C-alpha cells in the first residue's frame, strides 16, 4: 500500500543511497539552515551575553552595565508602552476586570475592549487572516493615511510581526532549486538580515543592489537595472524587489519621484514589490512626511485589484505587498509580535495560497492582532484617553529625534568616522576608516575588521552594536549599526565612552 507522499518525486535523487540515516549532527543538518545567518544575534551578542553573566556574578569589569544598541527593542531600554494599549489589553484578557472593575479604566478603553471581545474571545484561534474587526480598522487606517479609498479588509493578513509575512511572501515567490528553478529576489545592501536569512533558507538567490552611501543611502533605479541585468545574465529569474522605507540600517527616506521610478521599474520588469514600511512613523525631518508605496501607486492610477487570473498584465499593473508592525514607531511592542501585510494587485489564486500557508499555523497570536488594531486606530481627539495618548506619542517621538541627532553628531565627530543623517527608523550606520595595522590584526585573527571593532567595543565599554558585515556593505568598506534607543539620560555617557574607546583604538594602531 502506497503510503509515501512527496510532490517532487524521487526519481532524480536515486543517486543518494538510502539506508540508515546518520545521526542528526551539524554535518547532516539541512545545508540551507547552515548557510542562513542572522547577524543581529551573532558572535558579538554572544560575547555580550557572556560578559553580562560575568557582571551579574559580581565580577569587576571596566563598566557597570551592558548597553544593548544592537537591536530595535525599545521597551527593553526603558521605553514605556502606551497606557491606552495596556489598559485595553488587560481588559480583553481578564473579563472579570471588565465586568466588575471597569471603573478603574477610562470609558474609551472599556468600550474598545468590549468591541474586541464582542468580535472574538482572546483565547480562541481566529480566522487565519486575523480578526475581521481589526482588519477593518487596518483598512480604514490605510485609506486615511494615504488619503485614498480604503483597501478591502480581505486584502489584509494579521501576522506574528512583519517578519512572518515576509516569510509567507518569499516562500510563495521562490520556487524550489530541486525542481530546477533558479529564482531570486533583489535586496538592498545594506539590508535588514531577515531578507538574506530567509532567501538562503528558501534556497533562493539574493540579488544585491547597492544603496549610494555618499548621497545619503539613496536608491537609484539605474543601479536596480544593472543588478537585474547581471542576475539575468547568470541565469537567475528575479521575481521580486525588496525596498525598506524608511531604511534599515540606513535610515533614509525615499522621495516620491524615486518611488515612482521604482514602481515603473517593477511594472516594466515584472517584479513583485515587497515594501517593508515598519518604520513609517519614525521620521525625524519636518519637511517630509511618510509616503507609502501604495499611495504612490494609487496616485499613479494603478489598480489594487488584480482582476481574473486569465487576464494578462497590461502596461499599468503593479503587484505590491506592504508590511507594517507594532514593534517600532512609538509603540515599540516588539514582544507582542503584531503586524500586518497588505496585498495590492495580487490575484485571488495567489491570495488563496497565502491564506493556506497562514492557516497551517492556524492564526497569528490574538494579543498581537488586538495591538495592531490599537496601533492603527488610536484614541481619537476628544476621547478621554486622547491627551495621555498624544502626550506619550509626542514625548517618545521627540526624544527619538533628539537622540538621533545627538548620535549622528557624536559619531560624525569621531576621527575616521563618516555618518549619514538618520532621516528615519531607529539606527545609525556609520562608516569606519581604520588604520592598516588594525586590519592586519583582524586578518591575523581570522575575523572581519568591523566584527573585531565591535568585539573590542563590547570588551572595553559594554556597548553592544552589530558589525556592518551582518547587513552587507560595499567590499572594502566597514560599518557598524547602532540603535539610538538607549534612554536619553544615558546617551551622553554612551557617546563619551564610545569616543574614548575609538580614540584609544586609533592611537593603539596608528603605528
Amino acid at each position, binding site marked *: 500500500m502506497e503510503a509515501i*507522499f*512527496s510532490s517532487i518525486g524521487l526519481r532524480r535523487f536515486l543517486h543518494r543511497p*538510502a539506508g540508515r*540515516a546518520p545521526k542528526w549532527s551539524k554535518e547532516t543538518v539541512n545545508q540551507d539552515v547552515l548557510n542562513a545567518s542572522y547577524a543581529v544575534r551573532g558572535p558579538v551578542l554572544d560575547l555580550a551575553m557572556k560578559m553580562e553573566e560575568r557582571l551579574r556574578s559580581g565580577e569587576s569589569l571596566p563598566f557597570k552595565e551592558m548597553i544593548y544598541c544592537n537591536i530595535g527593542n525599545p521597551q527593553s531600554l526603558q521605553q514605556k508602552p502606551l497606557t491606552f494599549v495596556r489598559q485595553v489589553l488587560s*481588559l480583553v484578557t481578564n473579563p472579570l476586570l471588565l465586568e466588575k472593575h471597569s471603573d478603574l479604566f477610562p470609558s474609551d478603553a472599556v468600550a474598545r475592549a468590549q468591541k474586541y471581545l464582542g468580535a472574538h474571545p482572546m483565547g480562541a484561534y481566529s480566522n487565519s487572516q486575523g480578526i475581521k474587526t481589526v482588519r477593518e480598522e487596518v483598512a480604514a487606517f490605510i485609506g486615511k493615511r494615504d488619503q485614498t479609498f480604503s483597501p478591502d479588509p480581505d486584502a489584509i493578513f494579521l501576522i506574528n510581526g512583519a517578519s512572518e509575512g515576509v516569510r509567507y511572501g518569499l516562500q510563495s515567490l521562490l*520556487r524550489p532549486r530541486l525542481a530546477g528553478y533558479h529564482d531570486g529576489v533583489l535586496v538592498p545592501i545594506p539590508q535588514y538580515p531577515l531578507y538574506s536569512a530567509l532567501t538562503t533558507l528558501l534556497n533562493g538567490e539574493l540579488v544585491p543592489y547597492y544603496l549610494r552611501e555618499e548621497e545619503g543611502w539613496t536608491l537609484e533605479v539605474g543601479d536596480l537595472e544593472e543588478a537585474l541585468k547581471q542576475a539575468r545574465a547568470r541565469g537567475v529569474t528575479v521575481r521580486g524587489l525588496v525596498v525598506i522605507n524608511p531604511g534599515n540600517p540606513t535610515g533614509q527616506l525615499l522621495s516620491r519621484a524615486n518611488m515612482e521610478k521604482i514602481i515603473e521599474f517593477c511594472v516594466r520588469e515584472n517584479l513583485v514589490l515587497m515594501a517593508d514600511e515598519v518604520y513609517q512613523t519614525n521620521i525625524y525631518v519636518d519637511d517630509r512626511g511618510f509616503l507609502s508605496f501604495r499611495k504612490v501607486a494609487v496616485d499613479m492610477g494603478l489598480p489594487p485589484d488584480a482582476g481574473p487570473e486569465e487576464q494578462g*498584465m497590461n502596461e499599468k499593473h503593479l503587484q505590491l505587498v506592504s508590511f507594517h508592525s507594532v514593534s517600532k514607531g512609538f509603540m515599540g511592542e516588539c514582544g507582542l509580535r503584531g503586524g500586518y501585510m497588505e496585498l495590492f494587485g495580487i490575484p485571488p489564486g495567489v491570495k488563496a495560497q497565502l491564506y493556506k500557508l497562514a*492557516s497551517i499555523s492556524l492564526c497569528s*497570536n490574538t494579543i498581537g492582532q488586538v495591538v495592531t488594531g490599537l496601533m492603527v486606530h488610536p484614541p481619537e481627539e476628544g476621547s478621554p484617553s486622547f491627551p495621555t495618548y498624544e502626550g506619550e506619542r509626542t514625548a517618545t517621538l521627540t526624544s527619538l529625534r533628539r537622540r538621533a541627532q545627538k548620535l549622528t553628531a557624536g559619531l560624525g565627530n569621531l576621527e575616521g568616522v563618516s555618518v549619514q543623517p538618520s532621516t528615519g527608523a531607529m539606527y545609525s550606520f556609520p562608516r569606519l576608516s581604520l588604520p592598516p595595522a588594525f586590519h592586519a590584526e583582524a586578518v591575523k585573527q581570522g575575523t572581519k575588521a568591523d566584527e573585531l571593532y565591535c568585539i573590542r567595543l563590547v570588551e572595553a565599554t559594554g556597548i553592544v552594536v552589530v558589525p556592518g558585515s551582518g547587513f552587507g556593505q560595499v567590499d572594502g568598506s566597514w560599518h557598524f549599526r547602532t540603535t539610538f534607543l538607549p534612554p536619553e539620560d544615558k546617551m551622553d555617557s554612551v557617546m563619551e565612552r564610545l569616543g574614548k574607546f575609538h580614540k584609544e583604538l586609533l592611537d593603539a594602531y596608528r603605528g
Partner: protein
Amino acid sequence: MVAQPRVLNYDSLPDHVKHCEYAVRGELYRAATERVAAGKEVIFTNVGNPHGLGQKPITFIRQVFALVSAPFLLEHPDVHRIFPRDVIARAKAYMKAAPGGIGAYSDSKGLPIVRQEFADFLQRRDGFGSDIDNIFLTNGASEAVRLGLTAMLRGPQDGILVPIPQYPLYSAAIELLSGSMVGYYLHEESGWSLDFEELERAVRDAKRQGVRVRGMVFINPGNPTGQCLSRQDLEGLVKFAYKHKLVLMADEVYQDNIYQTVRPFVSARHVALSMGAPYAQGLELATFHTASKGVYGECGFRGGVMELLNFDERVADELYKLASINLSPNVPGQVILGLMVNGPRPGDESYAQYAREKQDLLDSLRRRARAITDAFNSCEGIVCQETEGAMYSFPKITLPPAAMAAAKAAGKSPDVFYCLKLLETTGISTVPGSGFKQRDGTFHFRTTILPPESKFQDIIQRFLAFHSAFMAEYKGSTGHGTGARARL
C-alpha cells in the same frame, strides 16, 4: 502592448505550496464560512478551539496576565481588593524577570524564567529535569514542529514517519519543506493501536523507494484518533527509533486530556530516560507541548514549547539560529505557558478555585467524549473507536452504494460529500477523513467534543436525525440501528 502573465500568478507558485493542504481550514471550513456569511447557523466542530465554542479561561491565568500586561495596575491602591495575593506575587515575579515587560523581544528561545518553569515541570512530571538551554518556547507547538523539520529535511530523499491518520500540520509542513512523508498505518479495529510490524514495513518500503527516514512523529494522545499509548508502546517506540536511528518527535499536546484510567499519560521522555543505557543517553527526542489544549484551551495566545533530549549541541545551535530569525516568540504566549505548567499549589489563595475549574472542565470533556462515541456507535454504518484522550472523535462511515455513486457524480470524495451534506442540513462543520489520510477505501470524518454541554445533546440529536435521513435516502431503509440513544 503584448499582455504578459503576472509575476505572482497561480501557475508560478511553487508546487509544494500548491500541493500542501491543511484540511482543518480547507474545503469544508470554507463552505462553513460561506454559510456564516449567508446568515445561517454553523456549529464549528472542525478545529480544537475550546474558547471559540464558549469554554471560559482559567481565572488565575487571566488574572496574572492582566497584571503583567498593565503593570500600572500593580501600583493601584485597590489592587489587593481586586486580585488575590498569589496572583499579584506571580505577576511581580514575571515583571522582575522580564524588566522590559511583555513588550520587549525576549531571548529567541524565550524568557529564561518560563523555560525554567517548564524544566521544573518536566522534573515533577517525569522525575527527570532539563536544562533551559534545551528548551525552546515558540508561537504554538506548530512553530516548533516546523523548526525541527526545517533542519531535518534536505530534500525528498529525506523522510519522516508520520501516523495515518495524522494531524495535517505534519503532511503540510513536510510538503512545504520538499521532504517525503512516510506513512505508517494505525490499526483502527483495535482502537487505533500501534503496530510495530507496520512500522518496520514502512521503513523497509521507504528504503526501497530511495527515501532515508530521519525522524518519526507520534501523537499521544492521538489526533484525530484519540488513543492513548501504554508504557509498553512507548518503550517499543523508543527502541524502534533508536534501532533505526530516527529522531523521535513526541507530539504530546493533549497530555492533559485523558478520559480513562487504564492508560494514564506517560511521557516519551520519562520512558526513554527510565530505560537507561543506551536509550537514555542515545535517543534523540523532541517533545512538544502547548497552552492551546488541555483544560486551558488558550489557542489564541500561541504558547508552545519544545524540549530537546540528547541533541547534538551544534544542531541545537542551528535551531537557535533559525528561531532567532523571527527574533522572539510572542511574550504573552510564553507567560500563559508558564502559568499553565506552574499553577497555584495547594495552600495558595487561588488554588481551590483553580483546581475546581480544571476538574470541572476535565469531567465535562470526559462526559462529552462518552456521549459522542455512544451516539456514533448507535448509528447504522458507523463504527467509532473510543476517545481515550485528546479532543476529537473520528468515526468510520460506510456509505451505501447509491451514496458513493452520488459522491462520484458530484466530483467529491465520499467523506467530503457526506460532510458537505451534514453541513448543509444541520450546520455542523466537520473535517473529512481524507484531510487526515486514511486507509484506501475507508472513510471517516473528524469532529471535536468541544461544543458546550448545554448544546451537546441537541447537536447529537441533529446529527442522528441527519444520518437516519441520509441512510434512508441512499439505502431505502430506516437506516437507524437499534442501539440506545446516547445520553449525557
